[in-house]
């Protein structure tokens, strides 16, 4: 029942277009201090809408100060170890996105003021895709990506 409601909601917000999207994400993504789970971001079907639902702004700058450590070839897509390290000053949030997953956003980490720009976790990948790391530093978004070849997908099927 709840999933049906979500589908209807998503369709509705897509139909109302960019303005509706901006309004709904503004309501649904109280990003700043309380990191509430952002349904719009985690259920977004493509990278740009996930990023804009999460951070409110969709433009990202490529940065060489973000390093993604992930295997070139992942034999098992259900467990892909990914580490993101950034030397950007004032990094407050790191997101890990697998761009070919049905819902690309996999995880978002909000960093405290004393937290280093480093996170490591394991994600599922449906198929060969770019792993994109998005870092929020100050008011700006930076990103880097790395292709991971997946031989056996890890998202059902």
């Amino acid at each position, binding site marked *: 029942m709840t*999933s049906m409601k979500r589908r209807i909601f998503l369709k509705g917000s897509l139909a109302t277009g960019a303005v509706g999207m901006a309004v709904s994400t503004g309501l649904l993504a109280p990003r700043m201090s309380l*990191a*509430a*789970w*952002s349904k719009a971001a*985690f259920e977004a079907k493509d990278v740009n809408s996930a990023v804009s639902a999460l951070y409110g702004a969709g433009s990202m700058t490529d940065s060489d100060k973000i390093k993604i450590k992930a295997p070139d070839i992942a034999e098992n897509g*259900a*467990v*892909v*170890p990914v*580490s993101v390290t950034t030397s950007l000053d004032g990094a407050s949030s790191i997101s890990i996105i*697998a761009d070919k*997953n*049905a*819902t690309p*956003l*996999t*995880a*978002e*980490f*909000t*960093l*405290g003021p*004393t*937290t*280093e720009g*480093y*996170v*490591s*976790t*394991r*994600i*599922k*990948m449906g198929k060969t895709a770019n792993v994109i790391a998005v870092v929020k530093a100050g008011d700006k978004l930076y990103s880097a990506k790395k292709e991971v070849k997946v031989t056996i997908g*890890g*998202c*059902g*099927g």
Partner: protein
Amino acid sequence: MASIKMRAKVSDGVTTIKALISHPMDTGLLKDKKTGKTIPAHFIQEVVCQHKGTTVMTATWGAAVSKNPYLSFKFKGAAAGDTVSLSWVDNKGEKDSADATIK
């Protein structure tokens, strides 16, 4: 429930946290091979790590984080002997937390 295994180690003023959580992390897409029914989504949505009342890390996760999730990160300002706590909440409202002493 003891679903969390956590280690915290300080070196040159930087504390490294490594945590393993036992959790199925079901995506809601997979079908049970025996019954043919879809296994409902069941995954951790939020992980919070605190040190002396300050939140050093809030992670929000989708269903695409692997089963039995692993998490590692680093922060400054803690000393050996301090306690760090980690807690998680999933989409069904289940939760758990654990403490670890920094070594």
